[in-house]
């Protein structure tokens, strides 16, 4: 226990964990915003090529993460053709995580929106509610469970991600080294016990998040069962 605490509180481990959790929270917020908008557009909007866009959403699930990292490096790396060189910075980590977590919120909000009848919204509008009020008072409460469970899944994924990050972050200790890369490096340098200590922290967070998803599912479906 003492040894565990010593590793976990070492400056390099603390920096890695802080960065991991910080980046993951930023990415989850981005996902909540863009994921909800994307799901809304896919359900309520009509435009040519919509089914293609719908299919493309799952790309991060199909593409190997290391390839995802390399694709981002090709466009946003040192030889970026658009002049957006963000590789080897913390911004690159956020970018990589946005890529791999993109489908979660979209795929949990989309089915809820599909089921949601527009009658309630039309009624509200006929009573004089503005678009924002309709969204806040009617749409949002209905899709909130979807947003939350998608956000938790995205958070879990972001905390553990390595493949897409390792090629684009530079893995600079104290600056751009995330927890999973820290674990990886400790194993490679022959300190599996150091790696295990930080792994326990990630494992603990994963358990908590799994419980959270289970609790959300239970809480929101108990009315249906009754």
């Amino acid at each position: 226990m003492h040894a565990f605490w010593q590793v976990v509180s070492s400056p390099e481990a603390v920096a890695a964990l802080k960065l991991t959790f910080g980046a993951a929270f930023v990415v989850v917020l981005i996902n909540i915003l863009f994921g909800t908008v994307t799901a809304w557009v896919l359900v309520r909007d009509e435009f040519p090529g919509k089914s293609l866009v719908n299919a493309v959403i799952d790309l991060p699930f199909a593409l190997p993460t290391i390839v995802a990292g390399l694709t981002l490096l090709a466009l946003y790396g040192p030889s970026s053709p658009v002049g957006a060189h963000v590789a080897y910075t913390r911004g690159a980590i956020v970018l990589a995580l946005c890529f791999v977590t993109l489908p979660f919120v979209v795929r949990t909000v989309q089915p809820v929106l599909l089921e949601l009848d527009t009658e309630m919204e039309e009624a509200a509008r006929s009573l004089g509610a503005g678009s924002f009020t309709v969204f806040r008072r009617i749409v949002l409460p209905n899709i909130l469970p979807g947003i939350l469970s998608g956000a938790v899944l995205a958070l879990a994924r972001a905390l553990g991600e390595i493949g897409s990050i390792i090629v684009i972050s530079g893995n600079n200790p104290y600056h751009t080294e995330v927890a999973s890369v820290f674990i990886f490096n400790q194993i490679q340098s022959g300190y599996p016990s150091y790696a295990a200590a930080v792994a326990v922290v990630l494992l603990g967070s994963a358990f908590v998040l799994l419980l959270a998803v289970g609790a959300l599912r239970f809480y929101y479906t108990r009315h249906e069962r009754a």
Partner: protein
Amino acid sequence: MLRRLGLRTVALGYLVVILLAPLAMVFYRTFESGLEPVWKVLSDPGTVHAFKVTLIATAIAVPLNTVFGILCGLAIVRRRFRGKGLLNAFIDLPLAVSPVVIGLSLYLLYGRTGWFGTWLSEHGFQVLFAMPAIVLATIFVSVPFVAREVIPTLRELGNEQEQAAATLGASRWQRFWRITLPSIRWAVIYGVVLTTARCLGEYGAVAVVSGRIVDKTETATTLVEDLTLNFNTAGAYAVSLVLATIAVLVLVAMTLIRPREGRA
């Protein structure tokens, strides 16, 4: 109308910046200097071997996890037993835990001083830094997909048809092959597609336990990283292109299967 257009632009713009533009860039970069360098990398014995290792691991992991996923789904939906809730929650574990942590757990178990590793090495089996470890890691990370697809379909299906068959004298085995399996087949296929994609693309867990010995335990994904680190960017792009093409094919399969799954 204007607001609708605005939201559409935001959503599509985000997709282009995060997903599509980078992917298009890889295709462009790969063929920037013609086909010849691409072919040179892909026909290199090391590359061929790396793909072979990945394919072998996938070929072992996918059937195992398919059978396991169907059995797990049946157990969770149709049976009552102690610890069912726990099993249901634990199936998702490989999705929530970092692949590196999964790799580390295998490393600690099968390493020279690990619980299983000591006994195995005394009897002449090498697991870590060899094929068995790669297969184990691949199986571990791809466990949940079939079960996750099968469970909701089984729930929707109910068991009236099976009960009817049972009253007509069908054995348990006949009921499974004639009724249950055909009803959930699209869910199974969808799960298999997802499992295959995950197996081919696994990096974190495999990188920890494989040892990445060229021509021995190097896989397609670890090869991409090694090529990148050795500044063989053209090579890394070429191998990535093959993996990305497989991903696009997976995507097409997913799109074709999903509507049928909904109907079944």
